[in-house]
């Protein structure tokens, strides 16, 4: 087998050196009756070519050749081939967690750069070396707020991504946290009146997403003020990081939980992505996840190490800030490479293209009789429209024209039937937008 560097002769020699008669001797500690007598019934073995053919056949059964207007937490953005050229290097791809700093300075310095980029983007003072994804980062941010305040009530915007709210619920159930939803107003932003009446001195955190699930941008300052006046912390969740190219960073938030998928990670049917928790320096000892710090060696050279490890499971065990062990290092590296490729101007330009194309798309869609913009507040690259008929039926029509239509909001938000979330990024061409508008117009002209 091509992955095993042993010849039959070498196996024989090694057994002899050990003093074993056969390889079965080495498994004698497993009771006889539990040792498998037959080979496992698994498909294969496949040669390299056959492995590739298998996956190519699967790829052909997916969405090749379709345009898409889906966002809703996973975004199509341009990626450079340079990123893969870097992360495919064996020294990055096949390297272990940098616990032995002297021989992993490459990984450690790259993580330090990642932490810095995340701080610059979010306006926070410290960021960790990544968490599994945005949904678990948001949950971990909430748990962090609980630890910091000693309180158990959490106020969560209904406009936070539905799956993020689901994940929070799963974790909250066993932590004794009480999670309550705060609704949104007519313009799509958080209902501040509802927030004020819900805020008492038992609230640990107010959790808001911006741009929120409807694409609407939230103003965080009044929300931060409200939270702080009750001694609660503001947790800002970000699912579309490219928005930070043109939007003010959530510096008023006490903790930021961001999904970094938009920065160079392929959609990959939902993962692996990279979440980040960023916050103030004074809260760092309650932060979950790995942290890389700058230091010097015994001869005065600058170097980097994993630090503040006493927060983590391998030391604190049952008193750890989180049970997280792996992070998303290779994904975080891809994000770091991508952001250095884009640079200050590139990110701004990318954000501007997103904004421009989304504005253009909305203006084209609003020309179609029956299509209405649902929320008046500003948006970035996603917006909600209301249709005169079921979105599912309209999307079925679009699908026959090889267009994957906008996200159906009615399932997660029963109060928003016939509403759809349209996402347009820099990868959507004008031709695709024009065709989408034309086909949608025809779809709505179809007899019911």
């Amino acid at each position, binding site marked *: 087998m091509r992955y095993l560097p042993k010849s039959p002769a070498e196996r024989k020699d090694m057994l002899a050196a050990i003093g074993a008669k056969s390889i079965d001797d080495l498994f004698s500690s497993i009771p006889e009756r539990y040792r498998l007598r037959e080979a496992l019934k698994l498909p294969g073995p496949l040669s390299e070519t056959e492995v590739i053919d298998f996956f190519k056949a699967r790829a052909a059964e997916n*969405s090749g050749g379709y345009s898409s207007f889906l966002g809703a937490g996973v975004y199509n953005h341009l990626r450079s081939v340079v990123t893969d050229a870097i992360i495919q290097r064996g020294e990055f791809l096949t390297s272990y967690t940098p616990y032995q700093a002297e021989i992993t300075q490459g990984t450690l310095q790259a993580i330090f750069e990642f932490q810095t980029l995340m701080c610059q983007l979010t306006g926070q003072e410290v960021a960790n070396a990544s968490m599994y994804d945005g949904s678990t980062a948001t949950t971990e941010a909430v748990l962090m707020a609980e630890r910091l305040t000693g309180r158990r009530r959490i106020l969560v915007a209904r406009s936070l991504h539905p799956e993020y709210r689901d994940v929070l619920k799963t974790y909250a159930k066993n932590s004794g946290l009480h999670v309550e939803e705060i609704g949104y107003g007519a313009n799509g932003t958080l209902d501040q009146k509802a927030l004020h009446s819900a805020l008492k001195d038992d609230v640990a955190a107010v959790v808001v997403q911006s741009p929120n699930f409807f694409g609407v941008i939230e103003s965080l300052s009044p929300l931060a003020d409200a939270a702080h006046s009750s001694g609660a912390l503001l947790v800002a969740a970000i699912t579309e990081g490219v928005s930070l190219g043109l939007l003010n960073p959530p510096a008023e938030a006490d903790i930021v939980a961001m999904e970094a998928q938009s920065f160079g990670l392929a959609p990959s049917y939902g993962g692996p992505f990279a979440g980040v928790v960023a916050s103030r320096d004074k809260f760092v000892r309650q932060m979950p996840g790995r942290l890389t710090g700058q230091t010097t060696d015994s001869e005065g050279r600058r170097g980097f190490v994993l630090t503040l490890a006493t927060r983590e499971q391998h030391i604190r065990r049952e008193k750890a800030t989180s049970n997280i062990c792996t992070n998303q290092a290779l994904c975080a590296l891809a994000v770091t490479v991508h952001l250095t490729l884009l640079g200050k101007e590139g990110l701004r330009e990318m954000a501007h293209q997103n904004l421009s194309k989304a504005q253009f798309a909305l203006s084209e869609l609003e020309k179609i009789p029956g299509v209405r913009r649902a929320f008046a507040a500003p948006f970035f690259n996603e917006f909600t429209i209301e249709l005169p008929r079921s979105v599912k039926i309209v999307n079925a029509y679009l699908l026959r024209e090889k267009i994957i239509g906008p996200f159906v909001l009615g399932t997660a938000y029963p109060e928003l039937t016939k509403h759809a979330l349209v996402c347009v990024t820099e990868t959507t061409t004008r031709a695709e937008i024009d065709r989408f508008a034309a086909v949608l117009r025809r779809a709505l002209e179809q007899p019911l």
Partner: protein
Amino acid sequence: MTDKIKKASTHPSQNEGLIFEKSSPGKRAFELPPLDVPAAEPAKALGANYRREGVEGFPEVSEIEVIRHFTRLSTWNYAIDLGMYPLGSCTMKYNPRVNEFVARLDGIATEHPYQPQELSQGCLKILQLLEKCLLEITGMDAVTLQPAAGAQGELTGLLLIRAYHEKNGNPRKKVLIPDSAHGTNPATAVIAGYEVENIKSESHGQIDVDKLRDLVTPDVAALMITNPSTLGIFEERIPEIAEILHAKGALLYMDGANMNALTGITRPGDLGVDVMHLNLHKTFSTPHGGGGPGAGPVAMKKILEPFRPVPILVEKEAGRLALEQIRPDSIGRVKAFSGNFGVLVRALAYILAYGPGVRQATEDAVLNANYIRKHLEGVYELPYSLPSMHEVVFSDALQKKNGVSTMDIAKRLIDYGFHPYTTAFPLIVPGALMIEPTESESREECDLFIDAMRSIAEEAATNPELVKTAPHTTRVRRLDEVGAARKPILRWKPQVSRTEAAD
């Protein structure tokens, strides 16, 4: 360095500063295609939220500088592609390149989790086949591919256990965990809302089965076992342990980190395990990438199936596959979307490459570990003498006589061209050296490792200072971890200027 060190030599290594230190306004590394719609006016469109300037401090460099920067950084890393990692319980095996290729295919990397299910049958077939393979390997009845990592898999497993007990009227209070367990075990139990009771291993490093009977009270929800244990030793009495727990209505959770010793040889389901997680980035060859991403599928017996996290893969009429988002008894969602799909693809590619012959990998892993054990017994102290499986744990007791610790030996191993083994774990062995070669190591590499370890033992006896001040050949010497923790510097800031001899 002399000819006793055969695997490595020194060589000029490129220096490189932080990317921010090479930054200069006006440089760009990536250009976008021109805008094909009317340009929006951001101030007008975004109002008060508009960010007037670009992100402050963001790098501005050219493409070649990006390539050089990260390429230079990469050359400072050790990696599996360069040589053996003897890290115990990490299973640092070869990361097959075809896995990287297929994960990047158009139609695999490009798929959106919310696209119509009729356009995702390829993705769903991948998930289904991986599920089937993992069930066959573990001997279990049902599986979830959602958890993003081993630790998340552990949490999922414990939440399944909790849901099961709750359905039976009493969630119970405690989880029993051996003192040899990995730190994620107790951390996870607490997050799942359980108290942790640490149980002491007996003199051979195994679970004390006789004492266990008294410890399993009606308050105990489960026991978390690692098998083979973190000492690399098979828990022979695991079927008995399962019986004791089951008699009291408790469940047996297995940490599957050491599955590389069992695949194709025995199945945890047959041994009485109720629920377990797998580490795809260990046993199933998905790359560590400097610390992740991983994936931690959880396999379980039928009794836990109703509580699986959503979404759940189902087969409908005419073989059509679908993901169901609502299940009444589910513990809920543990992660957005559907697991670390890209990692799952790589694991499936690994399994397909081996097929039923995957047993050979396990045999070679155990062969390598025992070969190394045989040649280092007597050179290093072996605290527990029961047969080793895929890993062996020594201690530094013999070397401590000269003041040389496991950490020192590990650092000296770096000069010999290897990554250190796992130091100071498991906790029940003071001064531990935990060594797991995996099946990916040739006899030659094993011999080089043995030679290195023997040579270092000799140095510990004749020239301990050399070992205690190692490594000597790396770009940086031992780093000040105390200073890094006392005065943390966790990001670059423009005004910081320190003498940086390294760049």
